């Protein structure tokens, strides 16, 4: 039966066909399972995101014992909030901002990032602009994000790798002493945990 052109599916872009080809080839060899692929996509689209990291930071602000466990061994401490084990074989280290010390995180090689706590990285984190300049001129980069630090504040830049990914613990905003964890978590932003924003 003949169909006019419009009766058929739109052919996806070449990249999409290449992905379909990979999926078909790897599935028929048993290297991957399509249900697992769907579960991975669902996790990263809907389940992980900066709200996870925000809960960790809020807990640390309100619970000094948790905070010391977090700074000592973040990979193990975040498990207390149910965020362990999403990514096997990678460790997280939390670095704390203090008066006189600001931390920021980059992956100069590619885009390594604490997925379990922040989800997938924003576009700018993957850009050449950020990767190439965060280490060599962090203050100018911070200024482009609207963060002006006084000259006496030390800036430390942490270069994440596939196996060790960093998360910044921002300073707790003043006047939040009476707030509970849920309210505090609302104050913690993604850029705050990468170190390109102040709270």
């Amino acid at each position, binding site marked *: 039966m003949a169909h006019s052109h*419009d*009766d*058929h*599916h*739109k*052919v*996806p*872009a*070449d*990249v999409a*066909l*290449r*992905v*379909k*080809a*990979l*999926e*078909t*080839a*790897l599935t*028929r*060899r048993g*290297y*991957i*399972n399509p249900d*697992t*692929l*769907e579960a*991975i*996509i669902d996790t*990263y*689209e809907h389940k992980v995101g900066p709200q996870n990291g925000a809960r960790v930071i809020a807990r640390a602000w309100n619970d000094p014992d948790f905070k010391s466990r977090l700074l000592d061994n973040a990979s193990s401490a975040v498990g207390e909030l149910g965020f362990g084990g999403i990514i*096997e*074989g*990678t460790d997280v280290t939390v670095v704390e901002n203090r008066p006189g010390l600001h931390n920021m995180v980059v992956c100069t*090689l*590619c*885009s*390594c990032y604490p997925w379990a706590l922040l*989800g*997938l990285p*924003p*576009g*700018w*984190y*993957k*850009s*050449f*602009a*950020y*990767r*190439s300049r965060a280490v060599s001129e962090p203050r100018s*980069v911070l200024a*482009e*994000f609207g963060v002006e630090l006084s000259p006496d504040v030390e800036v430390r830049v942490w270069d994440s*790798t*596939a*196996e060790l990914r960093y998360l910044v613990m921002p300073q707790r905003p003043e006047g939040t002493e009476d707030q509970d964890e849920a309210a505090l978590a609302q104050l913690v932003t*993604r*850029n705050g945990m990468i170190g390109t924003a102040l709270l």
Partner: protein
Amino acid sequence: MNRPETDSRCIAQLPKDFRDGAEPVFREPWQAQAFALAVHLIDGGLISWDEWANALGDEIRCAADHGIAEDGSGYYELWLRALEGLVAIKELADTDELADLSARWRQAYEQTPHGLPVELVDVSRV
């Protein structure tokens, strides 16, 4: 690279939703699928994290040579290139097979009437 320096070097020159982090996790379904394929192979131990980061880093470093944008918008194209490269090196699938499957998927899209699911008729054929 004959792009003005400010385009690739300045955060303020990046697409607006990249700067404010408002972009969706995946812009198109194939990006999500390519992402998940790599994570699945890594989770299954067929590719190590180190191998993955190095392969992706190599593609990112050479992005301009392939005419792929360096502002982050070409990221999943680079991701896919890294994945195809490692799949070939580790002989998880061969290049001819992938080209053949890609062509057959194209044909399936062209020939399947609207409203019916697009499927390869003979998936096990090599």
